[in-house]
């Protein structure tokens, strides 16, 4: 019963310097292809992002372009880019309320 999800071309980026936010990520990764999604989670308790990010391209080409480049340097820091292995699943909305 897999959740229906459109096929996505995602990379998982880690070791992102703290000074970079989604906007900069989009700008940088936009050079490889059109970006459909950019998810850079911030920790609302601390105000810092967690150092990793998902970038989704609308085409396989974008994904391949991004993967081919090495090293990726953003604002002087080397970041790690890899094909996203695990699909990012949003929090499931269904819940057991039988026992409520």
């Amino acid at each position, binding site marked *: 019963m897999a959740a229906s999800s459109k096929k996505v071309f995602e990379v998982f980026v880690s070791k992102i310097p703290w000074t970079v936010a989604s906007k900069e990520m989009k700008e940088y990764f936009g050079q490889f292809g059109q970006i459909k999604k950019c998810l850079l989670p911030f920790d609302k*308790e601390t*105000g810092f992002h967690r150092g990793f990010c998902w970038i989704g391209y609308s085409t396989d080409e974008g994904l391949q372009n991004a993967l081919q480049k090495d090293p990726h340097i953003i604002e002087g820091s080397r970041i790690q880019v890899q094909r996203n292995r695990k699909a990012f699943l949003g929090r499931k909305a269904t*819940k057991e309320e039988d026992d409520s």
Partner: protein
Amino acid sequence: MAALLRSARVLRFSPSPLLYVPGAAKYGPPRSGLAWPCASLRQYGVAPQQQGVSKDEASIGLRTKQAQQFDWALAKLDSSVRRTGRVTKTLLLRIFHDICRTGYPSGNQALLLLRSCGSLLPEMPLAERTELAHRIWDKLQELGASYDASHYNALLKVYLQNEHKFSPTDFLAKMEEASVPANRVTYQRLIAAYCQEGDIEGASKILGFMKSKDLPITEAVFNSLVSGHAHAGDMGSAEGILSVMKGAGIEPGPDTYLALLSAYAEKGDIAKIKLTLETVDNTDTSLMDRDLMQVVFSLAKAGYEQHVPEVVERMRHERGYVPDAMNLCLSLITQGREDTALTVLKTFPSLQVESENGEVPDLGNFFLRHCVNMEKPAEKLIKYSRELKDAKLHSGPLQFTLYCAVEANKTRLAMELMTDMKAEGLPIRPHFFWPLLTHHQRDKNIPGILEVLRGMQQLEVMPDVETYSNYVVPAFPNMDAARAALQVKRGHTDIAIRLIVAALIYINMSFCSLTVSSPTFPATDLSVFRGSLISGFKRLSVWSFSLFPAENVAYFLYNLIDSMTEGEVQAKEEKLRQYFAQLKSLNVFIPVTIYRGIRNILDAYHVPELIKGPEGRFVVLETRLAELRAEGKPVSAVLKQLIQALCAEEKLERALEIKAQFEQDMVVGAYAVLINLCSRHDNADEAMNLKREARKDSHVALDATKYLALVRVLSKHGRLEEAIDMLKEMKEKDVVLNDSVVTQLFHVLNAAAMKGDVATVQRLQDTTFALGLVKPTANLCSPLISAHLESGNYSGALEAAMECHQQYNQLPRIHDIICGLVEKGEMETLQKAMDFISQERGEMTMLYDLFFAFMQTRRYKEARKIIETPGLRARPGRLQWFAEKCIANNQMEALENMVDVTEKLFECDRDEMYHYLLRLCQESNDWRKAEAVWTKMQEENVIPREKTLRLLANILKSSGQVVPFDVPEVRLIHTRLSVVTVPSLAFNLLKDADKKGVVLGPAPYDGVIRSLLAAGSLEDAMAVREIAISHIPGFKLSDMASSLLIITQVKRNEVKDAMAHLKTMLQLDQVPSQLAITRLVQGLGSHGDVHGIEEVEGLVKALGTSLNLSRMVFLNNTVLAHIKNGDVDRAVESLETLYTQGGDTAHTSSVAFVFRKVIEENNDAALDKLSAMAERLANHFALYRPATDLFMQYLEAGRVEEAKFMLQRCAAIAEQREILLSYMTKAAQEPGQVNKIKTMKELVPDFVDKETLYSYLMKCYGLDKDLASAKALHDQVQQEGMQPDELFLKRLAVLYRDAGEAAPFQEPPESFKFYAEKLREKTKAQTASADD
């Protein structure tokens, strides 16, 4: 000998891979110097994770979460010291608070905390450190910790490290007042304190004390005097101390020179420093980097920073340089010498990564961070950042500094840094400000927020929607307040719009976060549990098997005996016998297999008598035998029994007589015992005769024991060839040698060796190994060496050992060989041995071998040289081996020396070493020595583990001495509590303990209360609470216990009490569990208490959303309360409001619970109205959830007709496939539910595709173990031409197998999980491709 010592020194430079183990020798050994951190590794003896091996720790099964967290924290403290040589203030405080919270701090916990308040905290100013030490001292005393000399000495050490000014005489008076006698260490440290102030007169006074008490004046005292004279301005006398020392027969050590060097440093006398360093180079001692760092520190502190580089360049960058140097930098920064710190930082060896890809490593993060924390001015930080950047040491120092500033909530510093960055053209972004905002948001600090926003404005950074929604708006009570405070005026439309969007996002968020997650319980690892049970059991003085269900006793017993060593079993033989008797009286049945297992172990432990019955049976048997013969019946069996009985009683002659009488009835078994007995009685001829007689049954083999008995007696009588034949016969007949037989073989060989009969041993050994009867072990090889040693031929022994190594990879008795060689002074052979070991086993092993040989032969000076070889690290196993040897042979001198010389050995577990010493003290009943050991531990700053303290206390007690410290006696009760799994037994234990006046900490009380509550024994639980309150004034139930109490009260319908308890809990700032709230609300609902529910909802809301409670809990139960009160209309109304006005979340809110309750209670009036409501919502508002819920509840209750009717009136229910599907998946998780799925299928034929349905049906049949239906389903699937998947087949196959039938197809070989995963992958792939 000198040559050998030289070979040891080589290790320092040799690149032997062994010594480059990562992390090895990272820290030099601690030095008991005056101020420099002695961050020793094993001095944190209490870290429980390290105690995993020690048995008393492993058995704590019933630990509270709190205790676990505490252990975790202690382990963390230990690892922090281990890795970095320092502790952070946060960590220390956290542990302090944890200890306070758990109540009743133990003596060594207090010691641990106090000891950490000195130089282990380089990031804290000296005065603050002392203040913290005092706070800890007072607080723990208040909590009941009792202090002994070790605590006072630790406090003194902290004073010295923190340069705290105090009056030594007052200190002594205070100790006297507390009737804690000062000891040698106390006086030594008081002298050091006087000397720190340059008060030679005071120091002399204490020195006088020491002399009058006949206490030895140690090197430490002289070292203090060097500093003392220097501080008094008398360098001449300071220098003179060295010759005084020599006069007193004490060689100046590294610490002496360090004291002198520090004195010169304080005067800025660089010439003398250089001179002294050269002098040191010419002596036997050597200074480490850490010592030089102390000199650097002294120079900087005294304001002679210009000389620092000259000392820094002398550092050798030993392994462990970086963490030590980091601590130096941190201390320098803390004490306002950050410029010097930067100088030191720049000398850090650059990391190798740099060259690899041209990236700049980020060096100095710790430096920048600490500067920020210490509030160094922005200009300085900017300057340092530039320097680091220019020196290519750091890629983005400014950004990192900013990171630290915003993280530490230093708004002003952050603003100044950003202004500079902006001027440099570096980008400034909105999220840079978020961490600052989070601090203010947490404190609801509106002015703070506004200040940050103004800062953004100044730097021309526009706050975006995220800034507002996540970090600004939540700080305000409502939107209006936010708008007012932010002064959104007309015209500022963009800000206004952002604010509104932000607010919307924020509100929505709070809804989203109301998800309910079910708590998961960690699966209990049964084997671990059993392990701890056993080790606890072994130490209990009272055993009672009634704790266990009968069927488990046997297996438990097996495990228990199996886990005991031979010695333990023998020692506890009497006790075990009692238990067997007890078991018998309880009619406990032990299965044959387990009986065999137990018997085998007991056999192996040489206590087979344990399982034997009463003796003297042979009288009966003999009569019986005569009777049988008279009756002409077969006698073989009884004959064998008789012979066995006789042999067991060692009555050889009688047995042989019987044998002669009944020659023709003898069976092999009977011969075997006779052969054995003859061999034992050294009667080789008779044994061989019997052997020949027994051969008439030539295909039957004797067992290995009998063969070996023969081998022994034959070889003893010089009949070597016959013995060899026996061995060959064993091989031919495939006789299996188990462990105990191998031991027997050893004894056979050893017996020959003891006669010095090298040839025999060699022959027997070679034959056994060549035949492959046993695998060669060190033990089995050792008799050969013994034979050589016995005849005094050491080089022969070495040759033989080397030969063994070549052939069997064993190096038997090498220690004895080396000892012999050392003793005899056979240098050449010794060198050969060392070369050989070094080559075959590595240098480290060689050094240890040599070390132990020197120790054994009392060449302690040489031994010390070996152990001081740089790069050498502790090998606990080998140290233990030697220690056990000393204990077994009562070699106090050797053991003491070993403990002494290993003081600075890297990673040496000091507590363990002292524990060995104490064990020997106990063996030899020497309480005076034990007391001296304790003083020594204080001098070395070792924190004893509880087991060490207990041992020491036992020694003192058994000699009638007063124990000068607090013994953790409650431990025993803890351990017992931890083994008892039945709550009522735990309750009894506690009551007993209470009667005996034993007071426990809050944790065990709480644990018992929880287990009682979990078993529903409310009254008993409350009784325990009373006991606890009577002992611990502030005792309160833990969160978990309180929650359980609420649940229990609700269960007993005492809803009012439960409600009251919830309020008490919240007042105490405790957080109730989700389940407790749910149960309480349900209880209130069934009592019709609408207000109560409202009240709880309010209380929970005030707690924040952390509970993850669904709003539906309150709503559903309010509805039920209305129904209970007969007000169905109100109930319907509130539900309708929810659905029609609840927004997005409405259609997912389930009211199944309401329907279920109403159906259960057969309240048809209410049901009618609710049903009407559900239809209305479905038909008018297209909200199908309630109707679907009701439909499924009908199904669940088996009211199929009503379900059908419901479906007819509201056809859209059939469309709610997701809900229906999840109903099916849920139903298929428990047995007996298959009909529900079938009914569903009948009512809504197309709610699911066939494939899925069938696989769930098969799952149900599997759960129900219904092979017949499963077969039918399989047939149906095949008839319909479908291909069942592997999971389906696997389930079916298991059903077949369990029923003992063969499946008509091949069972899929992998596990369920494998196929389930596979299926999931497949489904996913299909969905994905369907989307393309």
